[in-house]
């Protein structure tokens, strides 16, 4: 059974179609990355999942319960961290963390003090005086203080320094080890690349690609660079091969190009008798995948 199951989800705000048929399914125990540019619909999807916004069409379920009607029941088992944490100015960070834990009707506070220490957080300051990163810590500490079945994280690390970002990654790893499920929306692609088992890319309210990072790479291009002992003219036909793009030769004789993965066999056959001395093929980074999706569509 999927933990999150979204199908043909649509959300309109007046004339704006914010979500235009989103399909997404997150399995138990996986860390799921959710990426896309600003305004693509990530936060809207998450707000629908949290029962804050009512879907115009389609269904969204968590733990096989309807996200709108059974919101309160679902929320007993989830933890949420927004990208922009707004706190109550007259409460201290410690008070907010305790309040959030109590609202989740939990009496185990085992991780609270440990997390405050790991995140190097001062809980005695009034919330109004915290910086962006420190406000983010309040929500993160509250979220990880109590074990949840599902973590919904909407750009949770915005404003965190790289050291704290590492602590966050450890927290995710620990949650995963406990068997929890994580939906992580983020702009920090290295974070997603490192943490996530599967990824969905959203654009203009539609999911345009989903799957494992490896799976996505198969559908795209690898970057190939090679050197040959043969005269440059022998490679003349390379540019004409289907699936070869951006062919370049630099001053040192290094040839580089992008190759559609589907054409790998044909390209290698062409290169087989060209006295190749050295060949490197690198899969695209998530960043490159992301760019491909956004520039080419």
């Amino acid at each position, binding site marked *: 059974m999927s933990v999150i199951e979204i199908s043909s989800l649509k959300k309109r705000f007046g004339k704006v179609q914010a979500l235009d048929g989103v399909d997404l399914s997150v399995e138990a125990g996986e860390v799921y990355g959710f990426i896309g540019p600003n305004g693509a619909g990530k936060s809207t999807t998450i707000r629908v999942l949290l029962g804050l916004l009512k879907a115009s069409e389609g269904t969204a379920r968590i733990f096989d319960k309807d996200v709108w009607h059974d*919101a309160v*029941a679902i929320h007993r088992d989830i933890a949420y961290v927004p990208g922009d944490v707004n706190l109550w100015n007259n409460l201290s960070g410690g008070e907010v963390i305790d309040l959030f834990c109590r609202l989740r009707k939990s009496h185990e506070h085992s991780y609270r003090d440990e997390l405050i220490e790991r995140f190097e957080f001062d809980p005695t300051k009034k919330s109004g005086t915290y910086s962006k990163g420190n406000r983010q810590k309040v929500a993160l500490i509250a979220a990880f203080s109590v074990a949840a079945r599902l973590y919904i994280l909407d750009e949770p690390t915005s404003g965190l320094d790289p050291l704290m970002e590492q602590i966050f990654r450890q927290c995710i790893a620990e949650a995963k080890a406990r068997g929890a499920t994580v939906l992580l929306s983020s702009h920090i692609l290295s974070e997603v690349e490192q943490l996530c088992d599967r990824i969905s890319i959203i654009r203009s309210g539609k999911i345009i690609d989903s799957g494992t990072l490896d799976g996505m790479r198969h559908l795209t291009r690898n970057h190939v660079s090679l050197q040959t002992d043969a005269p440059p003219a022998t490679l003349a036909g390379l540019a004409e091969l289907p699936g070869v793009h951006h062919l370049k030769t630099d001053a040192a004789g290094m040839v580089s190009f992008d190759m559609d993965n589907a054409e790998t066999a044909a390209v290698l056959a062409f290169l087989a008798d060209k006295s190749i001395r050295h060949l490197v093929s690198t899969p695209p980074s998530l960043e490159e995948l992301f760019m491909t999706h956004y520039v080419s569509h």
Partner: protein
Amino acid sequence: MSSLLGTLGLIRFILRRDRLYLPLWIIGLVTLSVFFVPMLPDMVGDEASKQALVETMKNPAMTMMVGPAFGSSYTLGAMYAQFMLVWVALGYGIMNVMFVIRHTRKDEEEGRLEMIGALPIGRNANLLASLLVILAANVLIALLTAATIPAFGVETIDFTGGLSYAFALSACGFSFAGIAALCSQITTRARGALGLGLALLGCAYLLRAMGDADANLELLSWISPLGAASRCEPFVGNLYWPVLLLFAEGLVFSGLSFAFSSARDIGAGLLPQRRGRAHASVLLRGEWSLAWRELRGTVIAWLVVCFVFSAAYGSVMGEMNAFIENNEMYQALVGVGGSTSDITNPVISMLMLIMSMIATIPVISAISRLRSEERRGRLEQLLAKPVSRSYLFAGYFVIAVATAVLMMLANAFGFWLAASSTLSEPMDMGLVFKVTASYLPAVIAFAGLAAFLAGALPRLISLAWVFLVYSFLAVYIGRTMDLPQWVARATPFGLLPSYPMDAFDWPLAIALVGVSVAIAALGAIVYRQRDMSAL
């Protein structure tokens, strides 16, 4: 003057940002200042009823409430100025305080001034720009008011008097702009600065109430900008030097705020930030306790306001009795077989009515908080926990109703305590509490209305405030003068009978509370069904 560099650009920026807000305030205040002029002659009526009104306006309770009557012949103009000026000046004060804090401390708290500060713009340019805009707005309001007043062609309400009336109001308003500029240097939070500014406005009202009620304390009325404004004697003496005094006060306070502003860091205040607790107390454990924690300060502050204002009103009862004993006309009015209470009862009823409306302010404000929490994106985090929307909504409504009850208790207790201490024998406690309680259903009705708006029409929540101002004007004027009955009866306060002169109408009171709860419940139903958004 490099610290003021860029002021002109910022003025244009402020005007652009407030292109709706400022005109609405200007139109609102001009209307508030003049709307009653054309209605006055009809309401005053013939000579006999005018004489009765004159006596009413000159009694100590009225003087305490609205300030003294000026001039030996009590003309319509003199009556208009006495009847309206102090209340309308409160409106000017609120506008000036809100505007200045919105453009100074609020912008600073939200981090907008930081971005402006990074531009080639002087440190104090924003403060100067805000004060210049509000000064210009005050002058514009005064000119519009002065130009409108003679157009109604009411006897003795002429241009000269209108000009004095208009500038008295605007100068008083500007003095509060200066006070607000100072407040926004003191606290680090806009909410705190606003509270402080409005509290000082309340103090100004109280100072002049004490000064006007007792000739030995008249200095207090001069210290209060509201008292100084009424001493322009519009339509009678038409004095201008109180206007100059008030503008000068505004400039002095502004000057002080520049001095403080130059000396401090951005984001800092003169009051230090206290540290908080590392752990939440056992009392902070759910959505209701969080709501209470958020509203606690407001509720306590307003309890003090209600108690102090009621006590001030109560303290006039002693003088009221002396006034009746020495006044032939009143004695004639009481007549054979009558008693003094025939005159004091309506006064108690009127004073408690006004206090009930003041008590309504924190009630609406409690429910508005539900909306502002939503707009600031805080509810999003709360509702992502196992928190039901209806439960959250009910929490704010229950706190608002409890606030209403607490305020009314403070009103009754403050009034009774002060009245008893100035009278030779203690005031009838039961009467004061019953009069106060008779208005409770109306206060609860406002809680219901605000809850309905917060739930169903969140963008229109300020309609609750508009309706409260309307109720105040309709009932305040309607109780004193002849006004078509429906004008006051369209409001919860006017709908209820004037106890103890009329019998208390239980079915009506129960129906009013019932309808209030019902519309609040309707609000809750829509609230459960709608999107939670920052819009």
